[in-house]
């Protein structure tokens, strides 16, 4: 295997080495060195922005990195993660070889032996317990290559739809919301909207720490007086200090805020009537939907037609003054926000991320944000629109899930017979092999471990034993031995700790792949260095297992050529201009393309001047994702959160990201500088709350929720400041697990958990 990889690698080098423009020879007379550092282009893999980077390769190792000046996303600039990303390849504890648990300990085995064990166990489990007993949990780190191979293996070969990715935890509500509102699940615009907009409204999105490169693009526009940046946020962050205005609102109040703004726009007759009459319809959905606390959290919505009149009546309950007790926002600020959105002379862009999507009504909130833009007709046009930033670089967060979600196929839905037939035709299988019932979404997979419904689980490049909410519950479920757990990763994690078999994963520069990003850009990344030991990409591991299961006919690809071959097959699903995928050659040649893309890219979807799939006869816009070619304004009421504060648990707890770490830190904590910068989790308190509790900076405190407790140091007035009655804990630290406190309530339409709201008590540790 490793011999094969090496040969393949040399071939790849020969193929990609023909880029003399990127060759940057050191001044040979300078240091007495004659070996050249060769700069190669790749997208960064540590967040959803997909910055173009140039990596310096020398003697088969990555030795330096810099921003690519010509990359559309970042224009030469990166962030702390990007500038140190290459060091994440070289942590001393990389998983280099396959391991099998024997007598409680993971022991090194030849890769082929691990493959044999996995294949035998998978085959036996399906035979004994049926195809619904096996599940696959992939990663937001995944490339589209991995996602496509995984979807084909699970749905096409095994006939199981129990496959999901960690994007469920970050961005599922954004996709579900966009699908419901405008009929397509990716963003309509792109990052370029930042340069066209006059106003950016950030919705509970600490962009300085989550998407810093985009924040710098905003600051550059702001510095030259071309952009105002406003935020609505639950806490004061580094973002708040750099922008024009920051407005606080109460936790969970987003829908009330949105409807109050819309009410104001309607009351002041600032609605874009022409746009509404031509391009908008109204819908209402089920309202008794619960919080997805047991079983499969996703429940199908039942949309019903509504009218403008009903919508206006619906908004009546949210007049700024009436909703102030919920929103905590003064009526004059609602008026001001409404006037910004409605001003015909201003282009407005709304931006948010996972902190907003992680909401027990996340899909509704996403619908609501579309509502504002539809009401004033500011959508799908340069500088006007919505830009959900998903936090993760790959998988479903990035453009396409490629069939790696429980209800999806590479194109379409498993419930749709025509979509199943298309997949069967392209894959060369009997359409009846594809299960017509959507499988388990992320939390349901792990809930399936509780009652031994899931007996084989393969986790790829993600760390659910740190990242799942209400973690004690899922750690208990995984502790039993009824489920055989395979984990592929680059580093040991809390999840490899529970694995029966561990596979060494190649990451980023160590393998070739196609990636997406939150701005719809598809990028190709060539292999540049050898993976350590026996490590191989998730796609290669899965192809090896498929062969051993007897599905060689479905995966007639070699390790060297599978990226191009699988991409070409995937492209066959997307011949239509609404979703067209460019050729690998087109992606290899440049700095990626905005999907959908054939020979040219699509800058604004559903805009008839830019989108070849949009019908010009329908005017400036065509929301073709809905059969009636209209976007939908949804009547989604404000509903309370799953858990609220009370006398015993008086503080709201939110959890999230810091600039220096990605996900659960399994990559970024291997970078010495970033580890030193944020070596562990802490709890941020409001200064007045801290004073009342006798807590200072560095005081050890205990946080207690209805589910568990953790101890950690306090931070007061250092990085960000929660509002009174709120606390914040970063979620990257496997040693201080904030998810022991969080609740596994989900948005019932998207299955995305709410990591932003649960009730806790704060105690000083004495």
């Amino acid at each position, binding site marked *: 295997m490793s011999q094969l990889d090496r040969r393949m690698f040399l071939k790849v080098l020969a193929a990609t080495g023909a880029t003399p423009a990127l060759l940057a020879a050191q001044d040979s007379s*300078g240091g007495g060195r004659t070996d050249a550092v060769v700069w190669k282009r790749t997208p960064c893999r540590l967040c959803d922005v997909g910055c173009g980077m140039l990596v310096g390769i020398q003697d088969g190792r990555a030795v*330096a990195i810099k921003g690519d000046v010509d990359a559309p996303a970042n224009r030469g600039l990166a962030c702390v993660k990007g500038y140190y990303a290459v060091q994440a390849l070289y942590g*001393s*504890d990389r998983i280099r070889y396959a391991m099998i648990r024997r007598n409680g300990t993971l022991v090194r085995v030849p890769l082929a032996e691990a493959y044999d064990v996995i294949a035998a166990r998978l085959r036996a489990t399906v035979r004994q317990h049926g195809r619904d007993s096996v599940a696959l949990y992939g990663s937001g780190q995944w490339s589209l290559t991995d996602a496509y191979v995984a979807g084909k293996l699970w749905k096409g070969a095994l006939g199981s739809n129990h496959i999901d990715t960690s994007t469920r935890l970050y961005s599922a509500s954004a996709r579900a919301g966009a699908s419901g509102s405008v009929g397509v699940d990716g963003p309509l615009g792109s990052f370029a909207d930042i340069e066209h907009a006059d106003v950016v409204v950030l919705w509970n999105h600490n962009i300085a720490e989550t998407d810093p490169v985009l924040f710098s693009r905003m*600051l550059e526009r702001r510095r030259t007086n071309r952009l105002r940046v406003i935020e609505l946020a639950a806490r004061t962050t580094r973002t708040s200090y750099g922008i024009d205005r920051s407005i606080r609102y109460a936790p969970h109040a987003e829908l009330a805020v949105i409807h109050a703004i819309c009410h104001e726009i309607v009351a002041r007759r600032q609605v874009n009537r022409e746009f509404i009459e031509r391009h908008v319809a109204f819908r209402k959905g089920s309202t008794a939907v619960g919080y997805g606390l047991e079983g499969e959290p996703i429940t199908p919505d039942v949309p019903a037609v509504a009218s403008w009149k009903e919508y206006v009546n619906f908004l009546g309950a949210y007049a700024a003054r009436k909703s102030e007790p919920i929103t905590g926002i003064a009526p004059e600020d609602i008026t001001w926000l409404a006037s910004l959105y409605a001003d015909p002379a201003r282009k407005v862009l709304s931006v948010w991320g996972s902190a907003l999507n992680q909401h027990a009504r996340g899909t509704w909130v996403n619908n609501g944000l579309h509502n504002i833009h539809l009401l004033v007709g500011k959508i799908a046009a340069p500088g006007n629109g919505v830009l959900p930033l998903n936090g993760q670089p790959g998988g479903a967060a990035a453009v396409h899930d490629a069939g790696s979600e429980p209800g999806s196929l590479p194109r379409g839905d498993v419930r749709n017979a025509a979509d199943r037939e298309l997949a069967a035709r392209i894959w060369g299988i009997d359409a009846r092999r594809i299960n017509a019932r959507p499988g388990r979404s992320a939390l349901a997979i792990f809930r399936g471990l509780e009652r031994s419904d899931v007996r084989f689980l393969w986790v790829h490049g993600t760390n659910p034993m740190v990242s799942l909410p209400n973690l004690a519950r899922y750690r208990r479920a995984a502790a039993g031995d009824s489920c055989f757990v395979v984990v592929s990763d680059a580093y040991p994690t809390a999840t490899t700790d529970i694995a029966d078999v561990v596979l060494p994963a190649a990451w980023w520069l160590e393998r070739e792949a196609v990636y997406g990003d939150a701005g719809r850009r598809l990028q190709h990344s060539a292999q540049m260095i050898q993976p350590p030991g026996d490590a191989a990409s998730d796609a290669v591991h899965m192809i090896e297992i498929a062969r051993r299961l007897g599905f060689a006919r479905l995966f007639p690809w070699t390790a060297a050529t599978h990226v191009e071959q699988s991409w070409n097959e995937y492209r066959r699903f997307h011949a239509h201009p609404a979703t067209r995928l460019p050729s690998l050659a087109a992606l290899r040649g440049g700095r990626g393309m905005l999907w959908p893309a054939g020979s040219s890219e699509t800058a604004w979807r559903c805009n008839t001047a830019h989108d070849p799939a949009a019908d010009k006869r329908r005017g400036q816009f065509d929301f073709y994702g809905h059969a009636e070619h209209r976007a939908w304004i949804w009547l989604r009421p404000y509903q309370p959160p799953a858990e609220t504060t009370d006398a015993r648990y008086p503080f709201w707890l939110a959890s999230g990201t810091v600039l220096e770490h990605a996900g659960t830190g399994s990559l970024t904590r291997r970078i010495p*500088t970033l*580890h*030193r910068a944020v070596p562990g989790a802490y709890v941020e308190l409001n200064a007045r709350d801290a004073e009342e509790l006798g807590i200072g900076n560095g005081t050890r405190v205990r946080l207690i929720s209805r589910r568990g407790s953790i101890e950690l140091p306090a931070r007061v007035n250092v990085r960000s400041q929660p509002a009174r009655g709120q606390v914040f804990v970063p979620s990257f630290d496997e040693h201080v697990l904030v998810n022991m406190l969080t609740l596994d309530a989900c948005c019932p339409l998207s299955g995305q958990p709410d990591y932003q709201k649960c009730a806790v008590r704060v105690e000083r540790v004495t």
Partner: protein
Amino acid sequence: MKAGAEIMVRVATATIAIGAAGLFIGSFSARATRRLPADRPAREAPVVRLDRDSQPPIDGEARVFAAVVPVPGEAARRRSAHPRTLATFRALRPYPGAPPRIPHGLTADEFRNTRCRTCHERGGYSLRFEAYAPVTPHPELTDCLQCHVADDAVVGVSFPGDHPDALCGQCHASPRGVKLTLPRSDWRGAAWPEPGAARMPGAPPAIPHDLELRGNCVACHAGPGAVAEIRTTHAQWSSCLQCHVTVASAGSFSRTRGTP
């Protein structure tokens, strides 16, 4: 917090605004000696190195900048306790071209509000650190912490008002007394280019790095905040690229088409 604010005022008054590159009037006493290294293969172009040891240390701004306003009684103190050298320069960067780590403490206010530019936009002497602040080559980028990392151990550390020596602990031991185990890494960065290398005797040395985000040469190569070994000998000339050419993107020329 209060102490931090006081210090900011002190730093602001002690920080002497230096002029733009156009104000340079002084000149270093450049006594560059030339020598050819003996160990270089004969076929390569000869290399000229500037012998930095023979240059006197720079003890203040008066010889470099015209617009220096002397602070009474401060002159004697304005010797840098932390002179910038290639060694300190490299220690803050894992590879050539990396954005440097932040090597000093930051008050919570400075960290939160990204107040870096107070000192680093124009440089000058900081009483608080007893050192000259290096000048940023890209003051137009204002979200400094996007790329520059501060150690947790020195963030939010409050500073004693009048005894800057008490700050030593920031760098030399963790002020919070936290013993941090760094992750073990097999990382090896690219080699650092040798400074001052020229192709021919007497030729201006080439620029061994690209100029993206580092296009303002003055930031690192001139003034008292500059790195000692790469400090220019002729700060009065401000059009650096007239004589110094960047090699970072140079391939070799070859004719690909014949004469028309």
